[in-house]
């Protein structure tokens, strides 16, 4: 049979972007260690609702680590203490009986809090809208095998494309920089033949938008890559810097 533990929760509660937030303490008994972290929060919310209190608001959707919706800052780490996973993939067996767990939202000027642990990451969409695509209309594509792409290049492009857009990199960064996120998309297209035509324009446009939206500067601390749930490597940032300089030289 599965073990159960009890935990002390210290959760950030905040009514809205302008409201003053505060930590609220909760005690939760009999949490199955086979439960996921978010199932533990479901349990807490069920108990709050039973008492007529409003549940803790947090984002979550696929609960299998791919949609990028969940976004909790747990014990000082985006997505919690275990590396290479999202919040929804964290399981309670990673905690001990009577542990105190601190849960906060992503904290960044570019991601305002909506309520409690839910933040607004619309800035990420805006950066993608500025240039994260290849410009061609549906129906105009040549045969998929017309342009061979080496397996190595395809694999590296895939590693960059794996980014789930959760924002952990921004939350981890002391400057609130979005460089890892932006560099992953720019890298994917810079590596593939289909992305060549707009290579310079893309790098310029996405970096410009990132700066406009209030993300901080990159000082190469590497916290982003260390906390990234998809292990997007820092080499992407180096590539983005090269892409950006090359684009600027063309101006």
């Amino acid at each position: 049979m599965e073990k159960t533990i009890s935990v002390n929760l210290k959760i950030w509660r905040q009514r809205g972007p302008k409201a003053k937030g505060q930590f609220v303490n909760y005690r939760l008994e009999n949490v199955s260690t086979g439960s996921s972290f978010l199932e533990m929060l479901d349990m807490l919310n069920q108990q709050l609702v039973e008492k007529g209190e409003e549940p803790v608001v947090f984002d979550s959707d696929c609960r299998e680590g791919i949609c990028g919706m969940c976004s909790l800052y747990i014990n000082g780490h985006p997505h919690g203490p275990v590396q290479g996973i999202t919040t929804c993939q964290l399981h309670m067996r990673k905690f001990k009986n009577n542990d105190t767990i601190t849960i906060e939202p992503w904290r960044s000027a570019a991601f305002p809090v909506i309520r409690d642990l839910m933040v607004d990451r619309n800035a990420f969409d805006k950066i993608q809208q500025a240039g994260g695509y290849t410009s061609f209309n549906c129906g105009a594509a040549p045969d998929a095998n017309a342009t061979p792409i080496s397996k190595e290049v395809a694999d590296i492009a895939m590693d960059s494309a794996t980014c789930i857009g959760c924002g952990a990199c921004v939350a981890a960064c002391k400057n609130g920089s979005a460089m890892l996120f932006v560099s992953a998309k720019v890298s994917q297209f810079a590596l593939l033949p289909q992305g060549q035509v707009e290579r310079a324009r893309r790098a310029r446009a996405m970096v410009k938008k990132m700066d406009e939206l209030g993300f901080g500067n990159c000082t190469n601390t590497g916290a982003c890559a260390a906390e990234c749930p998809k292990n997007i490597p820092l080499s992407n940032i180096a590539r983005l810097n090269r892409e950006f300089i090359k684009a600027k030289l063309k101006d």
Partner: protein
Amino acid sequence: MATKQNIEGMIDSTPIMKDYADIESAATTAIDSKIPEGPVAEKWTNYKAHQKLVNPANKRNLDIIVVGTGLAGASAASTLGEMGFNVLNFCIQDSPRRAHSIAAQGGINAAKNYQNDGDSVYRLFYDTVKGGDFRSREANVYRLAEVSNNIIDQCVQQGVPFAREYGGTLANRSFGGAQVSRTFYAKGQTGQQLLLGAYASLNRQINKGTVKSYNRREMLDVVIIDGRARGIIVRNLVTGEIERYAAHAVVLATGGYGRAFFLSTNAMGCNGSAAIQAFKKGAYLSNLAFTQIHPTCIPVHGEDQSKLTLMSESLRNDGRIWVPKKKEDAEAIRAGKMKPTDIPDEDRDFYLERRYPAFGNLCPRDIASRAAKERCDAGYGVGTGNAVYLDFKYAIQRLGEDVVRDRYGNLFEMYEMISDDNPYETPMMIFPASHYTMGGIWVDYELQTSVKGLFAIGECNFSDHGANRLGASALMQGLADGYFVLPYTMQNYLSDQIKVPHFTTDAPEFDKAEADVRARIERLMNIKGTKSPDEIHKHLGHVMWDLVGMGRTLQSLVNALDAVEEVRKEFYSDLRIVGKADDLNTELEKALRLEDFLVMAKMMAIDALHRNESCGAHFREEYQTADGEAARNDEEYMYVSCWKYTGDDEKPVLLKEPLKYEAIQVQTRNYKS
């Protein structure tokens, strides 16, 4: 097993069954599916050659609402935007990129025949119709197979990093129900990469201004003006405000209703509400009994579980499925006295290879799920008793651990994270779970519902998968509908609407729809009972899984209707929603979705009850062959069931769209030889 005699006995003795037994007599309206004339291979070409178009200058005067941003919604919105229409695109998530298509793992089918293994458009079409157990529309499926190749071209051009061979060409793998390798993939994250491709195209249009993106908004009603869909009412999930949006046409791309079972592989927010709103406004719902129970999911761990995790079907390429041959071994494993690795090969029952030698571990999903249930019901299950093994020992012996890691590494990691077992060392445990719904909103060949100007694409329509969907075909259908079908058929609809000016949301029809939505919310807020939406949803889930799950009987379905009614009473008498209606309120969101799931659950049970045959995923235990296979009844049930709404407490009316097979000879599905 029920005999014919005691079924008739049940009909006599069960009032509710009597209530639904005469349902067919109400059928009056003829169904026009608008299938073009001519041989199946020429229908789509002919359609496109003769359909009406809208010229570029007029396109920018026409507004189209697309609800949903998954593969179908995002591809439709971006393509309609590229064509020059004004598109309003809605999603419930915080970004279009998070729609649940993102979680599809395995791959996407196309008839490219890059592997030179004998694939063709006809073969993909044939496999899909056969996989669907001859309950899908031939013309639609042929078109799907036909445009499948364009999808791959489109996605590569978008920069989707599909897996490649060392020579630089695209790689393929095999999926269930096929004898060729036609599945394109990007690691175990194909859905993610395809969705990000569609999202990229969508972003380009948002940047250009042809598409407006509305996030964190949930559709609560369709607005009908003079018999045509002209807008929607949505709830802003951040502020709680009720908003109105108008357009010349409305497209639903809102996914499936698999969370009627509560536990499923669907995301937490997946729901069937848009389909139910459309149903209440006159759109037919079809083939709701056809719900796919996916064979390879991680088994349930306990009552607090919120969702189930799928392990990609691609694992069946190299994993072998088994249970112990001896009951005492299975018992010892369940008691923790024995480990799977203690059981020698000769004492393992590779039941899929035994029963279906020609397809083995790669037989279609419905068959693999049922076979697992059969073994577990017979007492051979492992784990809690509701699990079977998926073993990579043999693949590791044959290919080496590195190759296996390269192919499935991320899936193995996912498994280990959830179950705390290392699948390189001990077999995975898997069990079937609700995954996909083949049934849904009825659409004609143009993907238009029975309400004019209301279209349905992707999983939320019923169209292409019949009674069972083959692996790697959902991504194909979503993108086929959105990139290559709807953008054409939409023009045929809008061609006579070019003189219709932009709609405003001041019309009395909008006032009425908004008032109805507000009244509905107020009613739920005012119940002030004691149970949370999730608690009641779990009750519904148990009813659906136990009585409308993998094996159904007349009696279980009759019981299901009673049980759903009980849950419904509980909902309307004891629901508690904390917080306020005009504010961010996740409990209210859940309650509204659950209210619609209650309608959907009832319709699913009614559809399963009326279909007195077994076909595909719909397995009525009374109707099986001597060796336990599904026994179809083509004479009486070779049709699409189309349910028409007549009122909340009224019986729905059944209409039938007969299915005709001209290009394919109808036969009994055989995956044995």
